[in-house]
């Protein structure tokens, strides 16, 4: 059933993408081109469509061609984006599409989407509290809502709703305050009482002696997306617009003269660039060290978990406010869940058993039935944990070098807005209006954006 509805959704998104090729596009601000505009001259590769899917199904799927080219690096570009994760690919896509820039390359040390964008638990939401954050994440949510039509690719964006459970009166007050902040910034929020939560998920442990469930903050527009497909959709969209996506190309140095960047040294030779944008998530400190910078970032490992496939059980996303545990169910039926970061600096892309035990305990406290499910896999990704838990999208002291990072464990939901805002900064040298707070100097100025109020202890955010 899940597989069938997945296939249907796939076909439907393709049909929507196909239909929206038709003309009749509303006026948009200058410099911004409309979604689904014709592709650059000479680009004949076919768009996906429902008809195409049916035709290929009937002819043994022999007509599909590679989704992007595999070019060798050119001697120089106008823009070099370092990092082929979600953020780097989205940046290249919007640079080409919305900001009409050309001569763009994305340099990726491994394969596209092999980093955190392919390792996360796929939750998208805009339920932040602070002024510096919420408009940005709501902008991102709006981009999610139009993404599949925009890049003509099925990213399985599913607004299945997210609830954050609360267990005390004080936590209800905090959730109400957060919900009001969300509404003030144009997002949606509701407070559910205990019975409303019970109607949705009767199997939860409502009367846990320490953490009884008192209700939840609900964002119906939140949900999940197919993480890999997000990377692939942006990659394909960028490639179609002439962006060179260069894999197996690690940046190993930066050529900087008189305070200006001239290009990057890579495992495939020197690549010149007028502007370099770095979006390498967990590797941020390593890459920016090539420019002599120390960052307000520590790298930490976050683990995630998936159970064996089960019948439909959880149709939304749920977070347990007491321990740190969150869960959703993939379209294949696996429970996808996670909890805290391991808590010590790590570049290992794998965690240790104590956190696995802690997450399992959180799951048992919230929904004891989970103890009957078998764990299929666990894995880890390297988080760029910042000093206040919020990201940075900013210029650097080096002319022509720009930085995007500090996404902590929450950068997947930010992918579209991060790409858009970074492209905006690269193309115009001004921050996008929703990203003006994401500056390096906020720590010097005492303007940290600290949602949890933890102070400069990255492992607690």
């Amino acid at each position, binding site marked *: 059933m899940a597989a069938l509805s997945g296939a249907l959704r796939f076909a439907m998104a393709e049909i929507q993408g196909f239909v929206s090729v038709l003309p009749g596009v509303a006026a948009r601000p200058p410099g911004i081109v409309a979604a689904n505009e014709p592709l650059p001259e000479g680009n004949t590769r076919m768009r996906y469509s429902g008809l195409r899917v049916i035709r290929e199904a009937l002819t043994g799927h022999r007509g599909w061609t590679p989704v992007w080219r595999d070019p060798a690096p050119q001697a120089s570009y106008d823009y070099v984006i370092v990092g082929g994760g979600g953020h780097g690919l989205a940046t290249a896509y919007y640079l080409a599409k919305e900001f009409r820039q050309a001569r763009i390359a994305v340099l990726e040390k491994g394969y596209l989407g092999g980093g955190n964008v392919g390792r996360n638990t796929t939750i998208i939401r805009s339920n932040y509290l602070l002024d510096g954050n919420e408009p940005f994440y709501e902008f991102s949510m709006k981009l999610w809502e139009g993404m599949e039509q925009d890049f003509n690719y099925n990213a399985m964006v599913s607004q299945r709703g997210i609830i954050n459970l609360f267990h005390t009166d004080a936590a209800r007050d905090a959730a109400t305050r957060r919900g009001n902040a969300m509404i003030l910034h144009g997002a949606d929020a509701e407070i559910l009482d205990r019975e409303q939560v019970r109607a949705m998920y009767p199997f939860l442990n409502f009367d846990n002696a320490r953490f009884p469930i008192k209700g939840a903050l609900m964002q119906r527009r939140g949900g999940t997306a197919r993480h890999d497909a997000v990377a692939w959709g942006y990659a394909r969209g960028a490639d179609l617009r002439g962006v060179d996506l260069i894999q197996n190309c690690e940046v190993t140095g930066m050529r900087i003269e008189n305070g200006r960047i001239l290009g990057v040294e890579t495992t495939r030779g020197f690549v010149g660039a007028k502007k370099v944008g770095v979006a390498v998530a967990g590797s941020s400190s390593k890459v920016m*060290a090539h420019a002599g910078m*120390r960052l307000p970032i520590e790298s930490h490992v976050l683990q995630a978990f998936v159970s064996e496939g089960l019948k439909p059980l959880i149709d939304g996303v749920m977070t347990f406010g007491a321990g740190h545990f969150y869960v959703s169910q993939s379209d294949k039926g696996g429970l996808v869940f996670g909890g805290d970061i391991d808590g010590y600096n790590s570049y*290992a892309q794998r965690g240790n058993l104590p956190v696995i035990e802690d997450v399992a305990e959180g799951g048992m406290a919230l929904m004891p039935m989970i103890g009957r499910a078998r764990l299929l896999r666990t894995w880890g990704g390297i988080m760029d944990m910042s000093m206040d838990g919020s990201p940075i999208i900013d210029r650097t002291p080096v002319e022509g070098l720009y930085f995007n990072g500090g996404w902590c464990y929450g950068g997947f939901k930010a992918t579209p807005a991060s790409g858009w805002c970074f492209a905006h900064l690269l193309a115009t040298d001004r921050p996008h209006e929703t990203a003006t707070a994401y500056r390096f100097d906020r*720590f010097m100025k005492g303007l940290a954006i600290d949602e949890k109020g933890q102070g400069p202890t990255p492992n607690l955010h």
Partner: protein
Amino acid sequence: MIINHPLLGPRDAQEFVYLGDARLIERPDGMAEGAPQAFHDHVYLRDNPAGEHRELWYHEQGDRSWLVVTRNTVTHEITGVELARDVARAKGRSR
């Protein structure tokens, strides 16, 4: 991970709380020229290396001592454990 405590012998890392880079011991002089910048760098900036890392662990579920642990952030291998007190004294910081 097992931390070989200099006084108590091998202990499970679970008994400890992690603070981070051991350079946090080197608190700048608040009265010196350029102190605001020095404090900004001290509090907010990190080397964050991939490889050997000297870091502060607090034995909260044990003897409440602070340790400086030398650990590889790529392999998680621990190669050295010292009392933070000794490290600070060697730097002339502690009484």
